[in-house]
C-alpha cells in the first residue's frame, strides 16, 4: 500500500513535468557530441538546489537516462557517439543508417533503451542491497580481466583482417599510455608538451577517430550522406516492434549485462554496451552480419547502456560509491540535499528512494514518445539538409563538442589530429573502432594489472591474484570462449557442408 503512495507522489504534475523536461533536455544534450551524461547532469545540478530532494533526483535521473538514449542519434546518423555509452551503437547503427534504415535504427534504439532502462530500474527497485555486494567483490584483478574481455572484441570487430584490427587496437592502447600513469606515477610520451600530461581525453578522441573520417568522406564522395527513398519515412514502429519481439533474448541479455556492469564502480556504460555487443555477437548464429547493420547489435548496445542507469545507482545508493561517472554527480546532489547513503536509505528514507525509483520508471517510459518524436525530427533533419550545409554543421559540432567538455582548445587539436590520422590509416584498411576500444580499455587494464601486481606481491603470490579468484576465473573462461568459439563453430559448420 505504501508503494502506491510513493507512486502517486512520483506522479504529481510537478514531478511529471520535471521528468518530461529532464528527458527532453537529456536527449538534446546527449545527442550533441562532446556533451556526456556526466556533463549534462553536472551542468543542470545547480538548478536543483532549490527543489525538494526527491524532485531534484527525479529531474537528474531523467536527464541521465535521456542523454544516454540521445547519444544514439549522433551515433546512428553521423557515426559519432553522443556520449561514450553509445560507442558500440555506432558499429551497427551507422551502417543501418547508411543503407537507408536510419529511422528504423532510431526507433529500435528507443525501444531497446526503454527496455534496458526499465530492467535497470527494476533491479534498483527490487534487489539493490544484495546486488551492491557484487560491486565489492570486484577487485583490481577482476577489472583487469574485464578490460581484457572487452579487448577481445577487437578480434570480432576486425573479422576478415585480424592483423589490421590488431594493429588498430595496439595504436589505441599506445594512445592510452600518454600522460601520467596512475599506478607508477611516471609521465609518459608527453614530449615536453604540458597539454599531454593529462593524457588523451576519451571524448574528443572518439569524436575525432569516428566522426572526422565520415566527414572527410562526405566531402570526398558525391552521393548523399545517408541513403533514403523519396520522402522521409515515418517511425517504422511496427517493424521495430516486430524485430524486438523476435529478439527478446538479445534485449534481456543486453539489459542484464548493462545492469550488472553498471554496478561495477570502475566500469560504466561504455564498457557495458561493448560487452553486451560482444556477447550478443558471440551468441548469434550469424556473427558475420555484425558490424554491417545488424539490428541486434544496436539493440544490445542500447539496452545495455540504459540499463546502467538503474544499475549504476545501486552502489550509489547502497554503498555511497558511484557506479558511473554521472552517478558521482547524482551522489553529490544527494549530499548537497543532506541525504545520507547506505542500506538504511531503503528503510529509513523509503519515501524518498521509492518515490525517486517510480520517477525513474516514469522518465524511462516518457522516453518512448519523446524519443520517437525527437528521433524522427533528428533523422528528418539529417537526411533532408543538403550536404553542403550538413558537413559544416556537423564539423562545427565536433569542434564545439571537443572544446566544451573541458573548455580546452588542446582537446580540439587532439580531435582534429586523431581524425585525420584515422582517415589516413583507414585508407590502408586499418579500422578506427579498435583504436577507440584500446583507448577506452587500456587504462582500466593497466591500472588493474598494476594494482593486482602490487597486492599480489604484498600478499605473497601474484599468480594467486590473477588466477586464483573465482570471479576472475569466470571472466577468463568467457575470454577463452569469446576467442575460440567463433572459429570452432565455423569449422564445425563447414564440415557439415560439402
Amino acid at each position, binding site marked *: 500500500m505504501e508503494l502506491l503512495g510513493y507512486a502517486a507522489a512520483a506522479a504529481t504534475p510537478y514531478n511529471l513535468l520535471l521528468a518530461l523536461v529532464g528527458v527532453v533536455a537529456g536527449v538534446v544534450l546527449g545527442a550533441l557530441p562532446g556533451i556526456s551524461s556526466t556533463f549534462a547532469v553536472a551542468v543542470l545540478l545547480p538548478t536543483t538546489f532549490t527543489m525538494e530532494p526527491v524532485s531534484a533526483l527525479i529531474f537528474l535521473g531523467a536527464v541521465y537516462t535521456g542523454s544516454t538514449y540521445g547519444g544514439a542519434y549522433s551515433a546512428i546518423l553521423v557515426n559519432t557517439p553522443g556520449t561514450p555509452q553509445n560507442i558500440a551503437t555506432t558499429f551497427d547503427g551507422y551502417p543501418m543508417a547508411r543503407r537507408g534504415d536510419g529511422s528504423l535504427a532510431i526507433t529500435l534504439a528507443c525501444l531497446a533503451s526503454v527496455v534496458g532502462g526499465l530492467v535497470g530500474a527494476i533491479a534498483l527497485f527490487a534487489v539493490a542491497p544484495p546486488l551492491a555486494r557484487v560491486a565489492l567483490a570486484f577487485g583490481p584483478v577482476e577489472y583487469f580481466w574485464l578490460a581484457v574481455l572487452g579487448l577481445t572484441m577487437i578480434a570480432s570487430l576486425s573479422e576478415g583482417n585480424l592483423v589490421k584490427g590488431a594493429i588498430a587496437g595496439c595504436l589505441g592502447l599506445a594512445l592510452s599510455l600518454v600522460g601520467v600513469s596512475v599506478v*607508477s*606515477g611516471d*609521465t609518459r610520451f608527453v614530449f615536453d608538451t604540458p*597539454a599531454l*600530461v593529462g593524457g588523451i581525453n576519451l571524448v574528443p578522441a572518439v569524436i575525432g577517430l569516428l566522426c572526422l573520417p565520415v566527414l572527410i568522406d562526405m566531402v570526398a564522395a558525391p552521393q548523399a550522406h545517408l541513403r533514403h527513398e523519396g520522402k522521409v519515412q515515418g517511425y517504422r514502429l511496427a517493424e521495430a516492434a516486430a524485430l524486438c519481439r523476435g529478439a527478446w533474448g538479445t534485449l534481456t541479455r543486453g539489459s542484464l549485462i548493462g545492469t550488472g556492469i553498471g554496478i561495477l564502480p570502475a566500469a560504466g556504460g561504455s564498457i557495458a554496451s561493448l560487452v553486451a555487443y560482444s556477447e550478443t555477437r558471440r551468441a548469434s548464429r550469424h556473427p558475420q552480419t555484425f558490424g554491417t547493420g545488424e539490428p541486434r547489435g544496436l539493440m544490445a548496445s542500447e539496452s545495455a547502456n540504459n540499463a546502467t542507469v538503474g544499475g549504476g545507482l545501486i552502489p550509489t545508493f547502497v554503498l555511497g560509491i558511484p557506479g558511473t561517472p554521472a552517478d558521482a554527480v547524482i551522489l553529490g546532489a544527494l549530499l548537497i540535499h543532506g541525504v545520507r547513503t547506505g542500506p538504511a536509505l531503503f528503510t529509513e528514507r523509503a519515501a524518498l528512494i521509492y518515490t525517486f525509483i517510480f520517477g525513474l520508471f516514469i522518465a524511462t517510459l516518457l522516453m518512448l514518445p519523446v524519443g520517437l518524436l525527437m528521433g524522427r525530427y533528428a533523422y528528418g533533419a539529417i537526411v533532408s539538409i543538403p550536404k553542403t550545409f550538413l558537413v559544416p554543421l556537423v564539423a562545427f559540432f565536433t569542434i564545439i563538442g571537443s572544446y566544451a567538455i573541458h573548455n580546452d582548445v588542446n582537446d580540439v587539436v587532439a580531435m582534429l589530429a586523431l581524425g585525420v590520422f584515422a582517415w589516413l590509416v583507414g585508407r590502408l584498411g586499418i579500422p578506427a573502432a579498435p583504436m577507440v576500444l584500446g583507448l577506452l580499455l587500456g587504462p582500466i587494464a593497466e591500472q588493474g594489472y598494476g594494482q593486482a601486481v602490487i597486492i599480489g606481491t604484498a600478499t605473497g603470490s601474484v599468480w594467486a591474484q590473477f588466477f586464483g579468484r573465482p570471479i576472475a576465473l569466470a571472466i577468463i573462461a568467457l575470454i577463452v570462449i569469446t576467442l575460440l568459439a567463433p572459429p570452432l563453430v565455423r569449422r564445425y559448420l563447414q564440415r557439415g557442408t560439402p
Partner: protein
Amino acid sequence: MRTRTLCAALAAAAIGALAAAPAAAYPDKPVIFVVPYGPGGPSDLGARVMQPAFKKATGRDLVIQNKPGAGGATAWAQLNALPGDGHTTMLTAMPHIILQPVVNQPAGYETEDITIVLVYGYLPEVLAVPKASKFQNVKDLVAAAKASPGRITIAGTGVGGANHAAQAMFDRAAGTRTAYVPFKDTASGNAALMGAQVDSAWTWLSQGITLKDNIRMLAVASEERVALAPELPTLKELGFNVTSGAWWAVAVPRSTPEALRRQVSQTFAKAVADQEYRAKMSEFGYVTMALTYPEVGGFVKKKIDEFRPVAQEIRAKK
C-alpha cells in the same frame, strides 16, 4: 549554460587582452572558477555549493569549468596562460601542487608558478580499514605492519597526491613499511577498501563519514579532533607526528595585478563566510577557513617546508 561559459571565456579573453586594470566594481561580470577535477568529486561539489553563496555575496555568477587530468596538473599547468583580469580563477589544492612537480616530473608547472590569493577550506585525511577488519586501532595495524614488512596494503588516490604523502609520512613516523596501492580516484580506492581488496586506506574524513556502514576510521590526521567524529583520535595524540589533508585555495593567473588579487581574495572570502555554505560544508566534514591574500604567503611557505621533503622521499622510492 555551455554557451554562457563559452561567451564568458571569449569575453574574458578579449578584455584580458585589452587591459587588466582593476575594475572599480569587482566583479562586474560572471567569474570563472576552473575546477581541475571532474564533476562529482569532493572539490567539484564544494565549488558547486559555493555557487549560490558567491551569487548572494556579489550578485554575479560563479561559473564552474571542469578541466580534469593528471590529478589536477593539466589545469595548473595552464593557469598562467589564462587572462589576469580577476574574472578568471582556479581551484588549487595543497599539498598537491607541492608534491606533483617533485614526484611527477615533468608535471608541467612548478609550485611557485601558482599564485594563491585565498585558502578557503581544509579536508582532513583519515586512516581507515574495512568494517570487518581485524585491526581495531592504529596500534594493531602498526604491529601487523612491523611483524611483516611490505605485507600490509594501503590504498590511496594516485601517485604523489595527498594520500600518498600521508602514507609516506605515516610509514616514517611509525617506522613501518606498507605497500601503497594507487587508484585512479577516491571512489575506486574506497570501493576496494570496502570490499577488503586492500587491508587499509588513506582517504578523506568526508568519505569516512558517508561510508561508515562499510569502513572503520582508525585515526584522523588533523591537528585536533574533529566535531563530526569526536571519538576518533588524532594521529598526533597517538604519538605519530602526521598532519595531512587537502587545503583548498583560490588561485589567479600570475598576470593578475596586485590590487585585483586582493579584491578577488576578499570577494571569495565573503562568499565562503556565507552561513548556509559553512553549514553544508561542515556537514560533509570540511573545515571552512579564510586566509586572505596577505596571510597566504606564510601559510604556503609552511606547507612547502612540510611537504617538499615528503615529495622527495616518494620520488626517491619510485
